């Protein structure tokens, strides 16, 4: 079967492990561009959040390239994400495409669908082979995220502008091709060494900002207008609070994805005084992470949300209060299908200037 996986940051690294190596044909989804967004916006409901639109655009592009099966995650609310796959399926069927939507989610009652979906993905291979492949894919994701987090530290300190982005790009291609754990280890060492070469260790007093907010928008550079890069070039170290690791881990609650939900409790505790109950999505996590960032001594936080996101609006309302109470600067950036960047740049620059001034003052006082 010709399968396609929607884009999310560098998640394409697992494509070969879970699709090609399982005997399926891989349809490489083209990188997110204005065209992807336009396609999504044209067919998606108007008030849906941005991730749905971009992923829908991905799917349309994949189907145009001949995909027969689309892999998508699901869920059971209260965030709208749980219903994405259903709505996207309806829209695509209406457009006249013929395909199978492979929705990976913990089913409610209907275990047969999940069983069938897993069997489609398994494609007649042995179970142990499949489990090994998925474990390996998980290792790839972990490594990729580790390196991406490293880039965020290196970028404000790099000797030559843009060097770290090049390194990570090459590494991602290597990870994509990797077939065993040893190769991954070698790639890791190699990349970390190259990072050391391009880093200027003399830079001091670098501003550190937590990037919190909605999962997709914070991890997919296209949807947040390459915010991490922009901040990096402004000399800011971004501390990414969302990760695929932390997202899939708690959902699966499976042994193979062990030790991925250790921080969950801590975040909940931190948010408790402000938002006592989970509101779905990353609502409570966002609030908790901002409180934790303050404790960790970061300089500020940027919350990124897609327009009309339900949980994040709750979080945004509450962040105003958190920011006031803790004297901790936060900035909320709302993204929709508008692609004008200048307004965004101005806001980021102003925010960074503010943080720099604050930091200077602190240093002088000390």
């Amino acid at each position, binding site marked *: 079967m010709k399968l396609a996986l929607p884009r999310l940051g560098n998640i394409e690294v697992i494509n070969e492990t879970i699709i090609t190596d399982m005997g399926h044909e891989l349809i490489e989804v083209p990188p997110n561009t204005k065209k992807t967004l336009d396609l999504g916006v044209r067919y998606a409901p108007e008030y849906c959040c941005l991730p749905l639109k971009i992923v829908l655009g991905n799917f349309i592009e994949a189907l145009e390239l001949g995909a027969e099966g689309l892999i998508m995650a699901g869920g*059971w609310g209260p965030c709208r994400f749980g*219903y994405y796959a259903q709505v996207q399926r309806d829209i695509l069927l209406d457009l006249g495409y013929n395909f199978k939507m492979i929705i990976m989610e913990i089913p409610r009652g209907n275990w047969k669908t999940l069983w069938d979906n897993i069997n489609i993905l398994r494609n007649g291979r042995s179970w142990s082979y499949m489990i090994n492949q998925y474990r390996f894919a998980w290792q790839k994701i972990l490594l990729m995220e580790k390196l991406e987090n490293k880039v965020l530290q290196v970028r404000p300190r790099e000797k030559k502008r843009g060097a770290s982005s090049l390194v990570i790009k090459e590494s991602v291609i290597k990870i994509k091709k990797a077939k065993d754990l040893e190769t991954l280890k070698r790639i890791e060492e190699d990349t970390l060494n190259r990072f050391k070469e391009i880093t200027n260790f003399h830079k001091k007093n670098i501003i550190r900002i937590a990037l919190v907010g909605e999962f997709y928008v914070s991890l997919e550079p296209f949807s947040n207008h390459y915010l991490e890069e922009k901040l990096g070039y402004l000399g800011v170290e971004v501390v990414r609070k969302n990760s695929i690791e932390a997202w899939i881990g708690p959902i699966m609650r499976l042994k193979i994805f062990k030790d991925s939900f250790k921080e969950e409790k801590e975040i909940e505790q931190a948010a408790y005084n402000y938002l006592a109950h989970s509101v779905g999505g990353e609502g409570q996590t966002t609030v908790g992470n901002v409180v934790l960032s303050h404790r960790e001594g970061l300089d500020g936080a940027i919350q990124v949300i897609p327009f009309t996101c339900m949980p994040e609006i*709750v979080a945004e*309302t509450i962040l*105003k*209060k958190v920011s006031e109470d803790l004297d901790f600067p936060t900035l909320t950036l709302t993204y929709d299908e508008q692609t004008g960047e200048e307004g965004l740049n101005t806001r980021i620059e102003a925010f960074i200037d503010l943080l720099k001034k604050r930091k200077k003052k602190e240093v002088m006082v000390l």
Partner: protein
Amino acid sequence: MKKKKIGIPYALYFYEYFPLWKEFLTRLGAEIIISKPTNKEILDLGIRSSLSEVCLPVKVFYGHVISLVNQVDYILIPRMVCVEKGTFFCPKIIGLPDMVKTSLGSLCPILNPLVDIRKSYGNWKNSLFQVGQILTENSLAISRAFSASWEKFQRNYVAHLLDPQTLRPGLLNCNNRAKEQLAEALINIAVVGHKYLINDSYINLNLIEKLKNMKVNVLTPEMVHPNIIRKQLKRLFKPIFWSLSQQVVGAAYYYFENRVEGIIHLTSFECGEDSMVGELIHHQSYQYPEVAYTEFVFDEHTGEAGLNTRIEAFLDMIRRKRRNEISFAPSW
């Protein structure tokens, strides 16, 4: 002892659960103060005190809360999480007590019992028990008040339901006289949407009254029996996990299936559930071309002329269609 005054905002889930709260609280000797029906002042208060990105119903809710603040001892804002297995309320409703608390500060103590039946089946009772303890120390009285009010609430819930026979008058095999009557008959239009939109005549710009004045028989989701809704929802590819939207979709599907003449879906700007649910209903409408379908979005702007034009156009279309059907129907 002076009676404790408990304020209940006249918005959002008020329309669902007020009978229960009222019965329970009055039995325990509290004085209930309901905020006034939404008006310009309340809406303005809400808009001013909330973020611009919050959806309209929540803004209205803010307004109601603020209008109550000076008159009462407590404000009741339950945290509704889950009242039926496998469903949730919208994230904004789950976070509502915290949102109100952070935005309005410590203006007035808020009672926020947590209703989440996933924790234990009797969670309704436990959460109302917490509220009851503020009013009286006699736990037996609280228990009794709860069971009485719960029973009454359940009975009320299935009060005025619809007779499916009246939905669509037959067109075939009718003589000229019957045709004339039919041309004059009221148009059956189903208005589906959240209760807090349909029943709040200020937000929906008096839509229901307007329709009635234009010789329309207005049908709402409340008129459909919960069992029918449950049956209709089985047709979905994936169950809906929002309690409040289930009724909307189930009712809309039911009205489509019974071929009412028109369906109007009311949504509010920024409503997250409706963006998904609206799409489901919209897709369903493709399968029933004989049912006219339209969608009205409400926000804090109050220009009525645009709405009037749309209603008139919608009704004109249905009337014209009916006239055509009548004149081409076989008669003898």
